[in-house]
């Protein structure tokens, strides 16, 4: 079985018996988000806290 299918099976094991399709979709989505974040870290696509503040300036102004 390929890695993606195994991953989904592992996620399914974590979910309660009464999980809905929507729940399953959500957890796969979270899983993908985490992977994207980790890829960013590995590739050095990260911001320092100062850079974050600059980018979010419009929300952080008093």
């Amino acid at each position, binding site marked *: 079985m390929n890695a993606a299918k195994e991953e989904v099976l592992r996620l399914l094991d974590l979910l309660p018996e009464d999980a809905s399709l929507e729940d399953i979709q959500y957890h796969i989505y979270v899983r993908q988000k985490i992977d994207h974040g980790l890829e960013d*870290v590995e590739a050095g696509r990260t911001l320092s806290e100062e850079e974050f503040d600059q980018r*979010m300036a419009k*929300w952080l102004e008093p």
Partner: protein
Amino acid sequence: MARTVRWSEAATRDLEEAADFIARDSQYYAAALVRDARATARSLRTLAERGRIVPEARSSNVREIPVKSYRLIYWVAPDGVTRDEAQVLVATEAAGEGINLQFCWFMVNYDIPWNPVRLEQRMGRIHRYGQEHDCLIFNFVAVNTREGRVVSAGIGQLSVQVLAAFQAAGLRGLLTQG
């Protein structure tokens, strides 16, 4: 140990999108979300290990802390085998029960409760679900004192009742006396 916090591009973009979306209804709540996320991320400079391990992730280095109705998910860069600094929590009996400290694995009891069940409770703060290290637990006792004798008896009792169970659960801790 103070850590450096860095935002991934993906997380920053998601937060921006979430804030822009909320701002359609309320600038105020959009700004509150960004500020909350910023403050939570900032707090991860210390004790980053306190977040919950993310069940969807494959690594226990991926953790999360709730920010409003969102999940702030972060990756804790693993330490080397040795390090120059350590964080130490000094606590009274108040930390002896009810709090989860499984990101710690070294415990020194400098006052020994006379009731072995309380001692067991303390050990259970660090030796619990989510612990990844072998736990080391040291008990300071003054020998040739009444306390020393009480504790010997207590630890004797404890070792019979509890240590067997702990060992079964994988605790390879030290229980020292003297």
